[in-house]
């Protein structure tokens, strides 16, 4: 089973994301900020990261640049999931090593579509 790390400071968003991702057959680990998420990644790299941008302690963008410099840190598929919906933020995320980008609000269809896009789940035949 693939693991997805959900990084978001809102417990409600984490709960919704968990429900959707478990429905897509992922094992879900939660972290509430970037520092917390790095601890998880040092222990074992997840296959996927669903990443909020604005969080206390360390934001999603800084987490991503740390992650990509870690040994094995280029392997997780990172999908931003944030209320930041401006083209500047999206471009910055992609240059920073994000694989996909979700603008909140999201639903199951959007998560499934984006995870399919980066090869985390198979396209229906």
């Amino acid at each position, binding site marked *: 089973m693939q693991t997805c790390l959900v990084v978001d400071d809102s417990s409600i968003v984490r709960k919704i994301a968990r429900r959707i991702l478990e429905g897509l057959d992922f094992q879900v680990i939660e972290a509430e900020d970037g520092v917390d998420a790095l601890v998880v990644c040092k222990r074992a790299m997840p296959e996927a990261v669903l990443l909020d941008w604005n969080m206390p302690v360390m934001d999603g963008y800084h987490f991503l640049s740390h992650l990509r410099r870690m040994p094995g840190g280029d392997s997780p598929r990172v999908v931003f999931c944030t209320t930041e919906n401006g083209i500047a933020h*999206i471009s910055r995320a992609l240059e920073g090593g994000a694989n996909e980008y979700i603008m909140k609000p999201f639903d199951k269809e959007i998560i499934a579509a984006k995870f399919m896009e980066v090869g985390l789940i198979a396209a229906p035949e």
Partner: protein
Amino acid sequence: MTPLDYEYLRKLLKERSGLDLSADKQYLIESRLLPLSRKAGLSGISDLVQKMKGGSSAIIDQVVEAMTTNETFFFRDKVPFDHFRDSIMPEIIKARAARKSIRIWCAAGSTGQEPYSLAMCLKEMSAALSGWRIEIIATDLSQEVLEKSKAGIYSQFEVQRGLPIQMLVKYFKQIGEMWQVNPDIRAMVQHRQLNLLNDFSQLGTFDVIFCRNVLIYFDQDTKVGIFNRLAKMTEPDGFLVLGAAETVVGLTDAFKPFPDRRGLYRPNAARAPAVAAPKVAVMAGR
């Protein structure tokens, strides 16, 4: 809604759009037409039917549009666009190397996601298509839907289903909370209102026809008729792309399936009327 209302709507939709509703689609009518009747200040479906019987052509058009408008999103089903890029275009680039032109028809262009997805695909291949004349014709029954397609403006929700984020960044411009397809991509698509039940031969011939998820609403005879007319408009070495749940098999031999590419068909060269005889001869020879 009374059984008589339902029959009236069924008959009218069949005549106007070819939409073939079975006897048990009351829920579909209600889900599509109740919002419309409310918008028109009417109390329900029966009221709406009364107004239609009164000969209000504006309301009849709106009813037909509401019943025939379908969900669509960018790169819907993904696979057909992979076929387009990996199977269809390489052949066309070879076959039309001298003429350097390609004509594509989206026969159920709807709100534009499909024709613009094709336009983006072609833009991604622009190195191989330098100096080519590219025509994408998007047609739809509904004028309202075509207007939305022409504008090329989509909600945040719409651009997140099927469209890779890199393509959003590359080919769209943000306008407030909405996203608009860039002018160079929009310029690749022409729009025409068209009812597939009517003669469409004036559109000319095409190298590729996308006709996905629209024929499912037609009855058998109508489908066969449309396939046969589509075949006349497809170049002999051209392609027809159908929806995932659709096929020509068992309906017509005007097209034949392309091996190992689901949803992809080519005109059947062995089919022209004169060829019917040898086919029988082959069978008899066994």
